[in-house]
């Protein structure tokens, strides 16, 4: 029982990332009708926002402390981050410690900006082009973004730890008399994802803006005929989708040290998630994201692996293939989306 609960939990953090990326993909696909192969790159850029902020906060100046000596007997050079010099070691230190959560604030404007530029500068010109062209151009863009990041940050994964207080483990089962030890940050990540997903759904459900976007997702032409400037709203929607992917990336950094190809790795799986959930269905994307995350986690249990060797590597693809063949619309897909 403990083991099963633990596997479910283990699946949830990866599932959260899938769900967040798939949500953004679906928003873009549902509103703009564009298949965005560069969406994984947005996730990656988000992660590197966290890396960048961490580096900025760690910018230091050096001075020579004559009163101390290093082991060679020379005067000791002390490096002090500017932040600590300005705010004092206590506050400054905890600012640095909390770099990853702080990066959320840092990443939101950047991601919205990146999304805006991407949509206005590139994607906009591809609304009327075939889907193959959209796939190809965003695929090219994904390569470019990935290589740019690689150029500036190198090819190796970069450690970006969570704040110390959130870095340990917690026994989630204590209250119900079970023993489920689980990293705190992953719990944080899950609730963060739930918060964002909830926020997006509320936004779409309860605001006029969201209502228009939902109407546009259902029937773009009619909404256009009502004289509503749907394009501008869609641009904003693209920015939001980019921000969601970016935030998913920011918060994921303590779980998996970011590297330049993390976007591609997640993209392939997120596409599969979208297809399983049903193209154009937001609840489907979220549901399938968590579902596949948990399934993957179960498949990597030793008991399952000894029964079906290699299943952990392919479970997601197998599920996707079965779903596509038996229920082409996906779990919660609408009729007529992308059915030629």
């Amino acid at each position, binding site marked *: 029982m403990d083991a099963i609960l633990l596997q479910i939990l283990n699946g949830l953090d990866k599932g959260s990332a899938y769900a967040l990326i798939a949500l953004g993909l679906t928003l873009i696909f549902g509103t703009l009708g564009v*298949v965005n192969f560069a969406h994984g790159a947005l996730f990656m850029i988000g992660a590197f926002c966290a890396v960048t902020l961490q580096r900025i906060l760690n910018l230091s100046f050096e001075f020579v402390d004559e009163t101390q000596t290093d082991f060679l007997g020379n005067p000791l050079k002390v490096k002090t981050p500017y932040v600590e010099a300005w705010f004092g070691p206590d506050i400054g230190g905890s600012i640095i410690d909390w770099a990853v959560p702080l990066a959320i604030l840092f990443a939101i404007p950047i991601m919205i900006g990146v999304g805006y530029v991407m949509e206005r500068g*590139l994607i906009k*010109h591809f609304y009327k082009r075939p*889907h*193959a*062209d959209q*796939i*190809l*151009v965003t*695929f*090219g*863009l*994904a*390569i*470019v973004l*990935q*290589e*740019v990041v690689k*150029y500036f940050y190198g090819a190796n994964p970069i450690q970006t730890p969570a704040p110390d207080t959130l870095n340990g483990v917690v026994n989630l089962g204590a209250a119900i008399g079970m023993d489920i030890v689980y990293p705190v940050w992953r719990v944080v990540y899950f609730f963060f994802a739930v918060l964002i997903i909830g926020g997006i759904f509320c936004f779409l459900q309860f605001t006029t803006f969201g209502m228009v976007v939902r109407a546009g997702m259902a029937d773009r032409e009619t909404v256009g005929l009502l004289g509503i400037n749907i394009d501008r709203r869609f641009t904003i929607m693209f920015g939001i989708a980019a921000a969601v992917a970016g935030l998913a990336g920011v918060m994921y950094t303590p779980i998996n040290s970011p590297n330049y190809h993390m976007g*591609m790795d997640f993209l*392939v799986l997120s*596409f*599969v998630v979208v*297809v399983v959930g049903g*193209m154009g269905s937001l609840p489907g994307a979220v549901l399938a994201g968590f579902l596949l995350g948990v399934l993957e986690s179960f498949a990597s249990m030793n008991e399952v692996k000894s029964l079906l*060797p*290699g299943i*952990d*590597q*392919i479970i997601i*693809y*197998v599920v*996707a*293939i079965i779903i*596509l*063949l038996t229920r*082409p619309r996906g779990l919660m897909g609408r009729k007529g989306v*992308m059915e*030629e």
Partner: protein
Amino acid sequence: MFGLDKKDTSKLIIVACLALLAPFILNPFPTDSALAQFNAGYPDLMQRFVIFGIFAIGFNILFGLTGYLSFGHAAFLGVGSYSAVWMFKLIGMNVIPAIVLSVIVAGLFALLIGFVSLRRSGIYFSILTLAFAQMSFNLAYSVLTPITNGETGLQLTLEDPRILGVSATADGSIPVTNLFGLEMRSTFELALGPWAFQFNAGYYLCALIMLAAFYLAIRIFRSPFGMMLRAVKSNQQRMNYTGLNTRPYTLAAFVISGMYAGLAGGLMASMDPLAGAERMQWTASGEVVLMTILGGAGTLIGPVLGAGFIKYFENIFSKINDNVLHTWFSFLPDGMEDAVVFIIHPFIGKGWHLTLGILFMLVVIFLPGGLVEGGQRIKGWLSRRKAKDGGKAAGETNPAE
């Protein structure tokens, strides 16, 4: 000639000349000149040109004709490579059985994947093929390790049985791949003055096979089958209501292009008998898409051009480094020289992929028809200009008469 019309025959002849004279064409610079590093007439590089040419020609039969965008074709290449290496391990070092098996196995694999994937079209098809390829890649790294040797890759050893050959040569090393005794690695070097040209047996085998593959592709393009594939791309609804079953047409195209990929994989292993899972990764699938688009999808000669173009510039760009740039721009004032080098630096050497991505985007945005369309546009522009000049000249002479 060969049942082709004049235009197609001339295309075949052009490609044949390019392929057979490649050792000359690709080595234009004398060996000890500063530009010698831009020579590309080395056996392994030339082999890659034609092998990827075959891969792209095959991919084009699927994508160019039917419009089905597969993102998993590298899987067939990988499967072909593994099959070929297994032939070398079990049967012997002759390349013919290896190549034949790699084509057959890739064809069967494509039949299986195509049967499932082609039940959907459009973006679903792309994602399905992507999922299959990624699945094969993951499997090759995990459960299938006994067959694929996992991360190390499949290699020949001295313990391999090789029932029609020897496990080890007289001097105790692993035998080399050959075509009925002609070693694939054997190279004849021709020194002409300051130039040196290399003629490699393996390259010429690949080139001949590529020509055969190209010829076959022309025949397919011009056949009723090829016309049906174009009709599939144009209007499936009309196909169905004209009494034509689109599924077997697309499946046949998929299997044929899978066999081309298998052939490329088999040749790759024949030139260098090892196979690794990274050949199956989806970035590798993206590369063949890129070659086809860049050259011109749906055109005959496009994929060959695209493959050559990308592999050539991959080689050149990877070789350029800051020192080379500094010598090039040494005529500029110092500060400016540094600035120019600084700007170009990210795009060269290891930055080749960045250049490739940018190139890819530019082509899709501005030149969806690829290099072939670009060539046609330039040609059209020139002839229009000529006509204009001619008209002007005529206009000027008229009043005088």
